[in-house]
């Protein structure tokens, strides 16, 4: 399965950036994600110059915050999406972004490889399931994430298959809480 191999590969890139400040791994990650971040920001209403500037800043933030990436709770695409979203709120809407309290403070135990693989596979399955949704439903989801719908226009997303990935994330949170106590 190409999708899975890709996702796990990106985790490996993130760990090389975190542990060894590996610029080769970063260049590959940049090659894949920077143009998508730029496309995402332009679709969200940013002009080309602003989108370019923000895409660079997002990728620089990915490097700086690499130690906060937890592969048992998010895929690399998901984590980069949250960084890009926050940059968009700051640059386009000129407001601060309060984020939930971080669960992992300071050095964390090395994550279990099986947990990492399961979450990454679950993310790939979710992406496939979204790709299979009827066109109009997929359009609505994209519009919501590109910021084209206001909160009052977003209705309950009944078609989204979120059950199993939610359980994986919940399990990862329980383990993290357990490890901290």
């Amino acid at each position: 399965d190409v999708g899975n191999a890709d996702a796990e590969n990106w985790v490996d890139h993130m760990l090389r950036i975190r542990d060894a400040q590996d610029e080769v791994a970063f260049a590959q990650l940049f090659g894949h994600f920077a143009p998508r971040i730029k496309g995402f920001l332009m679709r969200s209403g940013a002009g080309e110059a602003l989108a370019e500037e923000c895409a660079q800043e997002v990728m620089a933030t990915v490097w700086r915050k690499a130690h906060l990436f937890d592969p048992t709770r998010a895929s690399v695409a998901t984590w980069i999406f949250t960084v890009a979203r926050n940059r968009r709120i700051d640059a386009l809407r000129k407001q601060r972004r309060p984020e939930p309290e971080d669960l992992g403070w300071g050095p964390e135990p090395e994550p279990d490889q099986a947990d990492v693989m399961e979450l990454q596979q679950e993310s790939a399955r979710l992406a496939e399931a979204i790709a299979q949704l009827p066109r109009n439903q997929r359009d609505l989801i994209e519009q919501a994430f590109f910021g084209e719908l206001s909160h009052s226009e977003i209705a309950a997303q009944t078609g989204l298959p979120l059950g199993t990935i939610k359980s994986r994330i919940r399990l990862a949170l329980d383990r993290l809480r357990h490890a901290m106590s």
Partner: protein
Amino acid sequence: MTIRHHLSDELLLAYAAGTLPEAFDLVVATHVSLCDECRARLGALEAVGGAVLDDTPAAPVADGSLEATLRMIRDRGKDPIVARPPAGVFPAPLRAYVGGDLEAVRWRPLGGGVKQAILPAARGATVRLMHIPAGVAMPDHGHRGLELTQVLQGAFFDKDDEFYRGDIEIATEETQHTPRAGADQHCLCLTATDAPLRFSTMLPRLAQPFFRI
């Protein structure tokens, strides 16, 4: 402690997408800090965002984009690892807006022992801390928009529902209510609105412009 009143899918999705006014973002971030159930639901919705990003048509980056980014990285270096703040009443996102925990709040009296502190947030919605003495009820009111009320300490009662620390109440244009603080202890909550409330009695209506409720 079990949380029984959670965020709706609509609110979590709008927060994941980054389309809420800042005031609501703060209430959502505060609830998620206290509630692992909603944290997991948020994680799942953000995974949808990750899939959308990964599927977005690429826009070619400028020449020298990677080199410029690497220069930025070398100039600024890594983020320092921040120490965990001591446990308190406020979760980290709320603390950042107050500038500390409970003792740092700058209260303004509203009369009858009720106090409020409006927190700074971008236009579009207002967010405030409310301190309501034990047994005291808020004036009966309706809503012209959305109202989120997150309990931080004590409890309040609304019709047949009870709300304790961690619980959130979502009131809409259809809601008319008179929330009352629990009898044993004052109630401390964080509340955000995107439109002025609709009071059914004269006195609070007169005071409304002064208190920005």
